[in-house]
């Protein structure tokens, strides 16, 4: 279960287990190259839905029509499924480059006519059925790769996909719907889109429109939630990239981000479980930080390692902080990571005679953009 709810901002290969939180030279180079590539590339717009009949195709083709009315050079490169009368009306005013019918192993495949599209070289191409397979021996195994190629040739693409077809979401889709579509699109493809737009509609409306077979409204509602959260994650990432590229430091995003601060003697189990619960309920992020200390006893080291292992099982983002001062290191990190809740263990030190303020009091004094949640020490109960 825990493995299904991956932290919103972690992408495979991007965040190692223990992270140094500055961008590496390789990362900076990657960004520069991505920027250069983006300038030559066509622009990608994706309509994201959660079921057929939510109106994705209509919205997508309608966008094509509007752009044509505004003077852009628009063609349709692929349609799919049953065409409703309202979609047919739009298609009748758009130029088509029809898909090719190919037979392979007794099955019919509809393949985008790439050669014709390159010859025609429109400004914008509308492609439905993004998750389609191409038959073996095709130019690209999958249609989304055809779209990549169109983009690389400077052709902008408007397309549509359901959350069921996003590869990284398919375990969850299978849990909800009991089956998974065989064709899929990697989430990274969505993240590269300049624009993603959610096509939301209540499941009831879908049920009203079906003839006879009523899909299970509960299942639809879960898929709907999945699509909304996926879109929110994509948008969040776009926002962070925009802020970074414009050198804006934003302290508080739209997402709840919990940071659990571990020390060898903290009540880590309670803090981590509570952090996980917050992450799941808010669909936020769970981060764990500890400050590297060199002079740890074997017992403390063992405790810390056990806590970190627990955090790793919860798929928390784990960060080791460097710094002479525990409080400053935590504060800097929390601000940089747009933390909204900071979890700390009570100090167990008795306050008989205190000189100066203890670390927790200093953190409370300095915290400006996040809540601090203090957890009881295990011995207190």
């Amino acid at each position: 279960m825990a493995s299904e709810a991956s932290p919103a901002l972690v992408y495979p290969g991007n965040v190692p287990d223990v992270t140094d939180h500055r961008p590496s030279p390789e990362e900076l180079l990657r960004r520069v190259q991505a920027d250069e590539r983006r300038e030559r590339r066509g622009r990608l717009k994706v309509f994201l839905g959660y079921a057929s009949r939510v109106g994705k195709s209509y919205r997508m083709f309608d966008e094509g029509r509007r752009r044509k009315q505004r003077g852009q050079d628009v063609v349709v490169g692929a349609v799919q499924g049953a065409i409703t009368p309202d979609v047919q009306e739009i298609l009748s005013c758009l130029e088509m480059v029809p898909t090719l019918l190919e037979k392979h192993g007794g099955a019919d495949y509809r393949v985008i006519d790439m050669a014709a599209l390159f010859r025609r070289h429109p400004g914008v191409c509308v492609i439905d059925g993004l998750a389609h397979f191409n038959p073996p021996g095709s130019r690209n195994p999958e249609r989304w790769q055809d779209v990549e190629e169109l983009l690389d040739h400077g052709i902008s693409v408007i397309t549509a996909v359901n959350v069921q077809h996003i590869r990284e979401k398919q375990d969850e889709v299978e849990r909800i719907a009991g089956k998974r579509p065989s064709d899929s699109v990697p989430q990274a493809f969505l993240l590269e889109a300049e624009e993603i737009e959610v096509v939301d509609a209540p499941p009831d409306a879908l049920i009203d429109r079906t003839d006879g077979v009523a899909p299970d409204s509960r299942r639809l509602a879960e898929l709907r939630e999945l699509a909304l959260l996926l879109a929110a994650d994509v948008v969040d990432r776009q926002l962070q990239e925009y802020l970074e590229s414009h050198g804006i430091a934003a302290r508080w995003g739209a997402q709840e981000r919990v940071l659990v601060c571990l020390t060898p003697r903290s009540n880590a189990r309670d803090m981590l479980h509570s952090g996980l619960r917050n992450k799941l309920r808010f669909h936020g992020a769970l981060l764990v930080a500890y400050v590297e200390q060199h002079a740890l006893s074997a017992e403390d080291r063992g405790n810390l390692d056990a806590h970190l292992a627990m955090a790793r099982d919860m798929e928390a983002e784990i960060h080791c902080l460097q710094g002479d001062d525990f409080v400053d290191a935590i504060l800097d990190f929390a601000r940089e990571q747009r933390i909204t809740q900071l979890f700390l263990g009570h100090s167990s030190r008795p306050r008989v005679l205190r000189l100066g303020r203890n670390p927790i009091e200093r953190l409370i004094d300095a915290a400006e953009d996040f809540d601090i949640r203090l957890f009881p020490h295990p011995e207190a109960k």
Partner: protein
Amino acid sequence: MSETRRGRLKIYLGYAAGVGKTYRALEDAQLLHQQGVDIVIGYFEPHGRQDTIAKTEGLESIPRRTLAYGGSQFQEMDTAAILRRQPAVALVDEFAHTNVPGCERVKRWEDVNALLEAGIDVITTMNVQHLESLNDQVWHVTGVRVRETVPDWVVDEADEVVFVDLTPGALRNRLERGVVYGTEKARRAMENFFVETNLTALREMAMRHTAHEVEEKLAAAPAAAPAPVAGESSPPGTQPAGRKERILICLTGSPSSAMLIRRGKRVADYLQADCLAIHVARNGEGRQDVERHMSFARNLRIDAHILQGEDIPRAIVEFAHGERVTQIFMGRSTPPPWWNPFQETVVQQVVRHALDVQITIVAERRRPA
């Protein structure tokens, strides 16, 4: 009074003016009208947008009423006339609107509630920034303190919340083309509220909030027996089996208590926890401010009490223990006076006395300069 079926409420939720909420609501209305449903427009704000106005064609409108206030004329929804007309469905734009003084009800959502109670279904529109629980976050992100708010429970009780999406780029294009506002107003809007980062952050909030509404409705559905979340089964201390989380918000007369109330309630809602609030009154304290916070808390459906006591930390801790509170929400205490820097603050004393309860200290969010 005879038992009337309560009307159903559908909310189109957006993140800014111009994303197409009213248009979507009118599309619904047209569809229902074609199906022969008795639908009227109870209130509609055209903003001079031609495609939207075209969508009202053929639909019956209930004329607005005109009220004089402060030397000006204001037009408001004529709720009484809609109730007399008794349609099956009414379209009511701008759910978060505050009525001009002199109306029977202060807020439009209260007017809508009257329609629902009379068995009329309502289709309405609002933006995510009007949600009470997001007020501080919206201010922090955009610098705008939204005054017209709707308590979250009102939205939670809607039968359907539908997200209306448009990318910020497309919205800004529409603004530039003068579709949303006239050109001068559009230019000012672009420079202020409609900057890309604001729009993107609000859009993300709207997506997350719609997802939250979907999830809440799933949890409330009869067949709902969601599998326990991994790792949540029995964390010792935080949530003993069968023990629901209970959150206690400690109020003072300080203006920052409003933020504390919103934050505590939001966390309680997401964690599906009970939410209580107390203020410990010593004699002669600023009662008015506290009363305002109390009624604000009660409007958000928080169980709020005023206790009498001289020892504030002790009273808080005793109440928390008596009410089996699992988490206490407090604002930051004022620092100790200069002549006694080692004097303990209220927060420190509560921390020391309530060693078995989680304590959340909510910082006063400030706008970066």
